[in-house]
């Protein structure tokens, strides 16, 4: 790791202030991706602003149909939240399969989506759930937030404070992990809203990060069942190919995982 300067923020305002003070300052949330990246000297922030002690960024609340998750809430807290389990069980399932137990004790929802790793789980969940990402300055819809591989709509120094989700009628997530990294080789989150509309979001497979699968959304809107996807063919031309999987295999997984996500949604 290159030399850096550590700061501990006490509030959202303090965090934003601190991060504006460094040349190449970065927010440090759970650190489960940022710190390994720094250890390998692939990132060299001049300053790190620790968000783990900002009370306003923590916690889960469910009011009516609205779920609000503080950005500094850990994966373990989401996975084990009875309130979320009652309103949006697919999200608990997703959070319970990020990384491993130790990573889930530290990693946070805000950190995950700010990084927008093309194989991370949360981007698929939040995109399919049509979440709203609340920052210190504005609210951003998931459709606008995830702009490409490792890229988001966040401005310089802008801080995610919370994520808000309207509880879906049904949802499910199915992930085929990369056997080495355990990130998603392909993960598909399916959500059906009360009005019958369906959103399907795919992570791990896209060559430019998380994306929505329109054809599947249409098929499922008229018939929310795994068999409704039988006729859908997945084009592999925009899918990722690397030493772990060809685009053709990922295309197969998109369909298989989508069907399993629908089955899991019940």
């Amino acid at each position, binding site marked *: 790791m290159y030399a850096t300067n550590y700061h501990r923020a006490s509030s959202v305002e303090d965090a934003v202030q601190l991060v504006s003070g460094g040349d190449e300052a970065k927010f440090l949330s759970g650190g489960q991706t940022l710190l390994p990246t720094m250890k390998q*000297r692939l990132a060299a922030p001049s300053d790190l602003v620790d968000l783990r002690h900002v009370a306003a960024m923590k916690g889960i609340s469910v009011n009516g149909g609205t779920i609000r998750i503080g950005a500094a809430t850990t994966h373990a807290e989401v996975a084990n939240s009875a309130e979320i389990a009652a309103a949006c069980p697919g999200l608990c399932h997703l959070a319970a399969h990020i990384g491993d137990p130790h990573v889930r004790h530290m990693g946070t929802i805000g950190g995950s989506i700010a990084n927008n790793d093309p194989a991370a789980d949360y981007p698929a969940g939040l995109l399919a759930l049509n979440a709203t990402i609340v920052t210190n300055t504005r609210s951003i819809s998931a459709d606008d937030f995830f702009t490409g591989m490792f890229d988001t709509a966040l401005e310089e120094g802008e801080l995610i404070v919370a994520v808000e989700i309207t509880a879906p009628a049904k949802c499910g997530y199915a992930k085929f992990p990369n*056997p*080495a*990294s355990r990130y998603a080789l392909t993960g598909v989150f399916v959500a059906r809203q009360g009005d019958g509309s369906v959103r399907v979001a795919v992570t791990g497979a896209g060559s430019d990060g998380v994306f929505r699968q329109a054809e599947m959304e249409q098929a499922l809107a008229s018939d929310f069942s795994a068999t409704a996807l039988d006729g859908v063919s997945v084009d592999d031309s925009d899918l990722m190919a690397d*030493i772990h999987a060809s685009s053709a*295999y990922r295309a197969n997984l998109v369909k*298989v995982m989508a069907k399993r996500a629908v089955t899991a949604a019940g």
Partner: protein
Amino acid sequence: MGMEGIGARVARKEDKRFITGKGRYTDDMVAPGMKHAHFVRSPHAHARIRGIDSAAAEKMPGVIAVLAGDELAADAIGSLICGWMIHSKDGSPMNMGDWRPLAQTKVRYVGDAVAIVVADTKAQARDAAEAVEVDYDVLPAVTGSIDALKDGAPQIHDNAPGNLIYDWEIGDGAATDAAIASAAHVTEMKIINNRLVPNPMEPRAALGVYDEGEDHYTLWTTSQNPHVARLVMSAFYNVAPENKLRVIAPDVGGGFGSKIYIYPEEIVCLWASKKTGVPVKWNCDRTEAFLTDAHGRDHVSTVKMAFDASNRIIGLKVDTIANLGAYMSLFSSAVPTYLYATLLSGQYAIPAIHANVRTVYTNTVPVDAYRGAGRPEATYLLERVMETAARELGVSPAELRKTNFIREFPHQTPVIMCYDAGDYEASLNAAMAVSDYAGFAARKAEAQSRGKRRGIGMSCYIEACGIAPSAAVGSLGAGVGLWESAEVRVNAVGTIEVLTGSHSHGQGHETTFAQLVAERFGVGIDTVSIVHGDTDKVQMGMGTYGSRSGAVGMSAVVKALDKVEAKARKIAAHLMEADESDIVIENGELKVAGTDKSVPWFQMALAAYTAHNLPAGMEPGLKEGAFFDPANFTFPAGCYICEVEVDPETGKTEIIQFVASDDFGKIINPMIVEGQVHGGVAQGIGQAMLEAAHYDPETGQLLTASYMDYTMPRADDLPSFQVSTTETACPSNPLGIKGCGEAGAIGSPPALINAITDAIGNNDLTMPATAERVWAALRSAR
């Protein structure tokens, strides 16, 4: 057997320090004034070094020195050696390219060390290493063995034209060709044995300490064989004479072969300690380990197996190309020859065998012995061919094997080895019974009803371990003898120290070696200490690899115990005025048979050291040493059966059951032996289903250089294993031990692949059988 003697399932003595965090590994060592090293490594797979500019790095904070290859050469530090001479079939010696500990003129793989930076902290050393400017003239690289042999391939070493190291053969080519020509059936296959990274969980480390006052060097290192390290560093690398060099391998966190070799970093840390006047510690991070630890396997073979009309094998012809990487590592030349081709008869009576082996240089890290070393390659090739032949011939895999099993011993194969004992059908029958082989069809049908594909596969392996008779390996080109040593010291109060040249890095020697003493004298294992891993404490020894600690290391202990026992009997007989032949040793006492006379063990020991009342002419003291040189290799063998269920939608394979039935001869501690099988099978499953080192063929970059990309087996990839043993005694050593360290890794890959190919109905499958490969094979089978 006593409570703690031979055959007892004794919990390990060494565990307490490991489970309480008190193990002492090399990276835990701190020397006064110690500084930290980081190596400048080549980012290119193949390049000429035009120059090295370390001026900026030397001015960085905390930097003590930046040292490069020219300074090392000026101090006459030698090049790394390969310790086993192989001659090509035309009689010419192998082409050994020069391997400098720090490259001077050329780098040949990504990670090749160029310079060492010593600084106050590890982070400062790494910071400064990035500031060392190396001017490279980048050359084209080649990483695959087949490509390296092609006309026009980049030339890696000047003295190895066409990158060929040797072109070697074994067996009778004409007889084998004739058998194939006359065969009723010939099964032909191309077999690839994937390249693996050993990955012991403790990364390598070295701490070099030079003492100017004594002109003496101490090296703490992650080694499986500290004495061999001292020998090689003295005799070939010119670091220090043996009497001025102490090598200590303290607790070592796994080896699997990769810590046999003496690596550049160990040599350079010692040398740099003298150059800088401070103790120099280096510890490897995991990516550095991927780039620089010797890799394993990487064979491409074609094979023809010929059968007569009654399904008896009449000939086997094998052609193998083995990738040895950029330099010849310490035992690399022996692995694809004498540790591989000599096992190509497997468990079968085969009258004619011929194997041709070519080894090649490539721009990859050196390849050497990794758990099994040659024998997994032979077993995988043979056992896939056997299963395939059974399918082609329309007979059951078990029947085809039974038709061809060797049943009389000793059995001389056409490829050097003379098998001394075994009962292969007993292992096969045991494994089939445990796996309920007969009930497989019903299980397959049940799986089919759930949309899953079930398959079952077997593998009947043999290996040669307990390496080995020194004269025999010497005649085959080995540069060292492969005996082992022991010294048994009975202290004046009766406690016992056993000094062994074997080295434990997870095998549990501190317990099992003590069990030998408990068995012999009836003393508790807590009164026995096993001393190993320090050249200043222990007499010369050859270390641990090739499953040799039991068959060879323990045999040396037995010989030393024989001598101690003989003297103890004399002393006891003298003390009790009895006849030596009437002395019985049991429960910590020396008794006169048929009387109530006895002397406690400690009292006999005290008498030996007070020397007030010893038999006339007897020297005081009770301490004996022995060297054991085995009469033959040992031949563990067994049968593994694997049952899998494949998800046809994703190609993902789930291992439903894995059954191992092994014949290891005599077993000292079944609990530890089972643990060795579990670990070996897990590594074999890793090879078959998960693990592969991938180099980019254009750039020579290692694409799988961390656990993000290299799939290590994890708990949820594996089932619990069903492990059992059968026993035929090994006649080649006093305990009848065959060895168990590598069997699991040798026998398991073909069992798993045979099961998957059975499940999917397509035999065209290459390791590792990843979900995608299985999915693709399923589709092409339709």
